[in-house]
């Protein structure tokens, strides 16, 4: 599962902070809809790896809806507006930017759009001395 790699990256950030002598109070993990990671698998990897780094980290998962906005016509749209086949979804799962190979602006057909939100995995961390 490639979710392992994403979990590993998140825990590596926590580890960096813990190694500096801080205590991580809260880890918030935002899961972007576009990449659609397997949440259950991902959570398991995170908690498994996190245990090695620090006991009792308070982890919160936040689902983030994907939003696109067209740089040409200004139209904004969400993932539900797109029809992607299985292969395309899988490619985008591994590389969210592959979306530029399959998706055009639903209004003006431009490929010059931004992924405004909900791309992939990002995190915020609260820690104390």
């Amino acid at each position, binding site marked *: 599962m490639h979710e392992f790699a994403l979990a590993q*990256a998140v825990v590596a950030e926590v580890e960096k902070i813990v190694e500096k002598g801080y205590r991580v109070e809260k880890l918030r993990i935002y899961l972007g809809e576009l990449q659609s990671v397997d949440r259950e698998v991902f959570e398991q990897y995170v908690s498994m790896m996190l245990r090695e780094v620090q006991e009792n980290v308070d982890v919160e998962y936040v689902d983030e809806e994907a939003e696109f906005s067209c740089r040409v016509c200004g139209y904004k749209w969400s993932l539900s507006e797109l029809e992607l086949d299985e292969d395309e979804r899988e490619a985008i799962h591994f590389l969210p930017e592959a979306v530029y*190979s399959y998706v055009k602006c639903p209004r003006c057909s431009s490929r010059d759009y931004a992924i405004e939100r909900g791309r992939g995995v*990002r995190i915020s961390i609260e820690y104390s001395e």
Partner: protein
Amino acid sequence: MSRHYTVLDPRLEGAKKMLSSVSRIIAVMSSKGGVGKTLFSAVFASIASRKGFRVGLLDLDITNPGLHVVLGIDPLSIQPGEEKGITPVSISRLEFMSTVFYTRDNPSPMRGTSVDNAIREVLAATRWSRLDILVVDTAPGLSDVAISTLEYFPGVEVVVVATPSRLSINSIEKLLKLLSEMKYKKYLVENMSSGNLLVDLARKYHTVYLGSIDYYREVEEYIGDIEKLVSSRFGRSVEEIANKIL
């Protein structure tokens, strides 16, 4: 007790973890396009693997990938695996990774932010085996691919490929200036040249001159057949160069 709050992109730490299994990273760069970066990367990596090194090959020319063409890979019929990350494709004794497996050789127009995102994603997700060398092919220009390559690979060494044309020299000189101020270990390969015309340029920027590769017309027919490329006159020239840094 003071409390801190930080928002992070975890992928650069993820990349460090993934790259920790790699001993040596060699980026093939050139601000000028069409000087032979892609051809050199593929053949250099193959030659290194034939010498017994464990070698990875990564295409970071995100909007214009070419390594799969040189290697003769159809990105529709083969895909990377999944095992604690994405596992590169095994081809001709190399571990090969490219975003073309996901764009499926469709056009992939991306502004710089997306190019950089794609690079971060690939570095954080790709699980290389224990490698002696990772060879990284890059894009022309001095924009996202070049900038991210120089930042995200710890201890990267740079092989600059250049032709002796005035357009190439004017361009390459700027790349060499940048590399000098950043103290990278750097080498120069002169390509499609019948002489050693860039020795002084290399010296001026404290760059190790590795040698010159002739223009060989037969190269074109061998594109797509890496074995033939390796044993061609082009391959033999690359081998002489490789021997100096392997």
